[in-house]
C-alpha cells in the first residue's frame, strides 16, 4: 500500500438508525490507512447513530496514529456536533481542498 495515500470513506443521504449497519460497514478502517477523509458532503441528515460510528472510527484511528478529516456539505451536521458537545472533537471542513490539505499537512509533520 502507498503509505502517502489518503483513504476516502463516503456515505450519502440520511444517516440514521435505520441504516446503522450500513454506516458501520462504510466507516470501517482496515488498520493500514495513512490518512482518512470521511466524505459526508452528500449527507443531508445525520443523527447520533452516525455520530457514534464516527466517534468509534476516530478512536480507532487515533489508536493506529491515522489522521482523520470530515468533509461536510450541510450545516445540520455541525449543529449535531455542537448539541452533542463534540464541536471540537473532529477536524471538520466544508471544502474538499481544505480537508485534503489538512491531511497532507498533518502527515508531513
Amino acid at each position: 500500500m502507498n503509505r502517502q495515500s489518503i483513504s476516502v470513506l463516503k456515505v450519502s443521504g440520511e444517516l440514521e438508525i435505520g441504516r446503522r449497519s450500513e454506516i458501520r460497514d462504510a466507516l470501517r478502517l482496515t488498520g493500514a490507512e495513512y490518512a482518512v477523509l470521511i466524505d459526508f458532503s452528500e449527507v443531508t441528515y445525520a443523527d447520533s447513530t452516525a455520530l457514534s460510528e464516527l466517534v468509534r472510527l476516530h478512536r480507532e484511528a487515533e489508536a493506529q496514529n491515522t489522521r482523520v478529516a470530515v468533509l461536510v456539505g450541510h450545516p445540520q451536521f455541525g449543529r449535531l456536533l455542537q448539541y452533542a458537545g463534540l464541536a471540537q472533537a473532529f477536524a471538520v471542513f466544508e471544502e474538499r481542498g481544505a480537508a485534503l490539505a489538512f491531511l497532507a499537512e498533518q502527515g508531513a509533520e
Partner: protein
Amino acid sequence: MIGRSELRIVCCADASSVRLLRHALRSFLDVFALERDLLEDILMASGEVLSNAVEHGCDESGRSNLELIARGGKGDTLAIEVSDEGEFVERGRLPNRGFGLGIARAIANNVTVKTGRGTRVEMTFEPSRARQFR
C-alpha cells in the same frame, strides 16, 4: 390563519419507522413556516427521541408499538411526545454511544421523561424564542 393542529401516529417500533415518522413530522410542521434551522433542529431532536424509543422500547419479542404526537399552531409552542412500551434507560455517554437524549435536551426548550407502563418523552419548542446558540 392556521389554528391549532395535531399529528398522531401509532406504528411498529422498528428502526425503519424512524425515518418515516420524521418525514411525516416534517410534513406536519411545514405549514407553520418555521425558520429552516429551527425546523431541522426540531426534527433532529425528535429523531433522537424516536431512535431511543426504538432502541429501548421493544419488548423481548421485538414486537412493540410507539406513538408520536405533535401539537402546535403557527407562532405557538410546539409540543412533541414520543411514547413507547419499554423501560426507560437513563445512561451517561458510553464510550461511543448515548448522545441522543442529550442532543434533544440541547435543542428543545423543555424535555420531560415520564416512566411507568412504558416511557413517554415530552418536548416543547418555542418558535419565537431563539436559543442562545442560534
